[in-house]
């Protein structure tokens, strides 16, 4: 009799075996049939979009001006690794890099010829710029009706703000979306430098824009599979990010309330906060009643379950009661190191079930500590990768664990124009002499 091995293997082992990122390179790639031209400029969001596609197997050609994309300069304290800043280095994965001067008429012609081969174009200029050059969607769809043209711009391709040519940016996306208004500490006793609308440290305004652009592109690709039709995909990072500002719009239209900054408090669930411990901070949540009761047992204050200020979910979400409860929790937690607090919670919830076990923690870690956590390495979230040009670097690995068509990392980055010879020969049949000529004419 043949044993049904699947049923006796634990889910954990089975799922790992099916989706282990170490096995990724042996499996097929979902987007292997696609050619993407990424002509984004000064916008890491465009690069994030093409990173998603390139990790999933699309062949991506990055098109830069001959001095390189200005985004190669976006780097902490101006650090450069060989010819490239760190922001760019992280999002150039698996992409071929060529140069092409789109301000030059011959350059535009070459771009059009490349577009005939392309499935997707990604661009990040203010709306109408590419159209003005004769290389916009209106012109390209005539020569390639299957083309999906994804345009990223803070103000989008239509509407009254779109035609003003005001540049978009990462920080404009954050500000316009409502994220910065809601993020940060509230003003208490008069203005202070830190009680202001606060940006996220990392480029969330770009990463969300890029991920949403990939989402729009993939929706269009699925539609094209069914219908054969390409289309223009208009992505405003600011608007996309609005989708993630919780109940910002709903609360306003239903109740006339504007969601304000509250530091680490949350007006709809509590406790759901960071609390101070002896040696750092941890996240602590226990907002449904059953979990709250468990937490009160853990901190040795079971009598508070009956406290009228705290006894129900709704009572706990007034600012006054949130502040009172914060103090109560910290009175307990500051006696223990973070790891001990988390251990005490884990022990208690392992004896509970269902909603009573929903006491949720998480140590607030600095990046250096996050990097030391073996779990993220096991999962391929971090990888140390040896690139033929840029050497050994540690960076984010592809995110998705997929059983059939997993994403993968092939190389990290390419120098400016490094793939001119290959790409121009492969797609346009332009040989060495031709390239020399193009260089002389400042086309590449």
């Amino acid at each position, binding site marked *: 009799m043949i044993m049904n091995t699947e049923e006796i293997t634990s889910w954990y082992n089975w799922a790992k075996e099916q989706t282990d990122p170490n096995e990724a390179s042996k499996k097929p790639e979902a987007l292997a049939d696609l050619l993407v031209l990424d002509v984004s400029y000064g916008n890491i969001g465009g690069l994030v979009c093409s990173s998603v596609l390139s990790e999933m197997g699309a062949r991506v050609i990055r098109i830069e001006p001959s001095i390189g994309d200005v985004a190669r300069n976006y780097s902490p304290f101006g650090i450069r690794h060989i010819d490239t800043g760190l922001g760019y280095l992280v999002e150039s994965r698996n992409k071929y890099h060529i140069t092409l001067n789109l301000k030059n008429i011959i350059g535009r012609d070459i771009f059009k010829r490349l577009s005939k081969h392309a499935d997707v174009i990604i661009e990040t200029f203010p709306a109408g710029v590419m159209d003005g050059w004769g290389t916009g969607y209106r012109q390209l769809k005539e020569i390639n009706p299957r083309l999906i043209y994804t345009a990223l711009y803070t103000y989008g391709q239509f509407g009254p703000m779109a035609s003003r040519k005001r540049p978009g940016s990462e920080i404009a996306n954050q500000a316009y979306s409502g994220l910065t208004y809601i993020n940060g500490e509230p003003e208490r006793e008069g203005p202070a430098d830190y009680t202001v609308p606060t940006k996220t440290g990392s480029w969330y305004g770009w990463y969300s824009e890029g991920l949403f652009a990939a989402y729009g592109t993939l929706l269009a690709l699925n539609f094209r599979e069914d219908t054969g039709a390409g289309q223009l995909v208009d992505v405003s990072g600011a608007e996309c990010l609005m989708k993630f*500002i919780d109940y910002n719009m709903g609360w306003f239209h239903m109740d006339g309330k504007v969601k304000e900054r509250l530091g680490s408090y949350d007006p709809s669930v509590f406790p759901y906060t960071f609390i101070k411990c002896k040696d750092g901070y941890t996240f602590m949540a226990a907002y449904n009643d059953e979990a709250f009761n468990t937490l009160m047992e853990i901190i040795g204050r079971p009598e508070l379950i009956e406290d009228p200020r705290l006894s129900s979910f709704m009572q706990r979400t007034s600012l006054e009661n949130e502040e009172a409860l914060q103090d109560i929790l910290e009175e307990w937690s500051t006696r223990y190191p973070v790891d001990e607090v988390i251990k005490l919670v884990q022990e208690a919830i392992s004896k509970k079930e269902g909603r009573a076990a929903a006491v949720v923690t998480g140590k607030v870690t600095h990046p250096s500590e996050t990097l030391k956590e073996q779990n993220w390495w096991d999962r391929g979230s971090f990888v140390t990768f040896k690139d033929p040009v840029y050497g050994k670097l540690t960076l984010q690995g592809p995110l998705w664990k997929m059983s059939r068509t997993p994403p993968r990392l092939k190389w990290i980055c390419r120098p400016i124009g490094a793939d001119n010879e290959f790409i121009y020969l492969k797609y346009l049949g332009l040989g060495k002499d031709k390239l020399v000529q193009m260089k002389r004419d400042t086309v590449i």
Partner: protein
Amino acid sequence: MEQKDYFEWSNDLFSVAKIFDKPEALKGVRVLELCTRVFGPVTADLLADFGAEVIKIELPGVGDLMRYVAPRGFFWQNISPAFTHMNHNKYHVGIDIRKAEGADLLRRLVAKSDILVENFRPGTMDRWGVGYRQLKKINPRLIYQGNSGFGQWSVFKDRPSYDATSQAMSGFSATTGFPDRTPLKVGVWIGDYTGALFAALGVLVALYHRKKTGKGQLLDVSQGESLIRVLDWTWVFQTMSGKDRRLYGNRDVAISPSGIFRCMDGFIAIAAMDDVQFKGLCKAMDRTELIQEDRFKDISQRIKDDNNIELYDMISKWSITLSVEKIEALADKYHFSAHRVSNAKDHFDDEHLRLRGAVWEFEDPLYGKVVEYGPGPKLAKSPGRMKWFTRPIGFNNEHIFRDVLGLGEDEMKQLEEQKVIGIWMDRMGAKPPDNWDGKDGVFF
């Protein structure tokens, strides 16, 4: 051929008034949502926005616990705005899949579905006999999206996780906010949303692959890993320099200048993304002499930290003397990036957003006039759209069970009596509006 003005063309192409005359990108794609709270429901919502038929399966009675999360305890017509913004265009059914007959109903639905999204703790569905291992036998084309805090096979798989767990453990919090302040939890459930967007991306890639090959697969996406992935240059910086990324407040240390600034009457984002925009900003500030100075003359100089700090201070001193509106007008004139720190009211009143369907007003048969943020990317040929608002638990039971499963009157009655299927309990957040007539919004 004479071409129309670009914006005349694009306004017409994307006209919100024509959206319902166009096809949907995910037409004919059926999604089963077995999710609670935020991470899972948002994943399915991103698919529902573009035409997927999402069937949200909730536990009869209490349903999705997010229904009871309400800002300052505020409910509107018996629902919470914290629940509605991630649950539209869905069909709501109540099935207790823990019961054998309930699991059987789920299997029958799976046989007729394309995608399943769940966010139980890893292994839960498998234990109930309805995990991917079992379901793929019923439907090999199934795309199974497992959402969790740490992944299906992480060493932390048994630890519960909320959004802020991932904020804390990824390093996102430790890199957002001002120096010498307590760590800041971002004001929105950013770990959930980011994870959800990655999950939706994975699903769309898998769907594309399935269209080519007919084969489904298992996908595993984690909240914590999602935030690690979007932390841009953090990891490569840490490992190259040996230094931790710290808190830098509202100044971007990798783009100069870029940040949030205080004005006379509010706050504004200002950035100059390249040398041309920097010249524009200098003109607006009436400080054109800065362009001549070595420390500011090009982007590679400005990004040096001393120069970046100095520039940030100069802009701060300038912006405080002007109104938000004045600086935005200067940005239009001189072409640098600037946008006010906007809140819900700004969005509600924003003509640009209204015209683009980014702020979308519609009439729901059950709840009346509703205003929400519309679908993120705008697709010219297969646009997303808002059809209806959320629904009480099990509101579409009869419709779905009859239409999709072909259950008859008696069968449904029996399942109801066995408490296998059911509707809402009499609780705020779960039930219809008080003045509901028992008919409005019932499609069948």
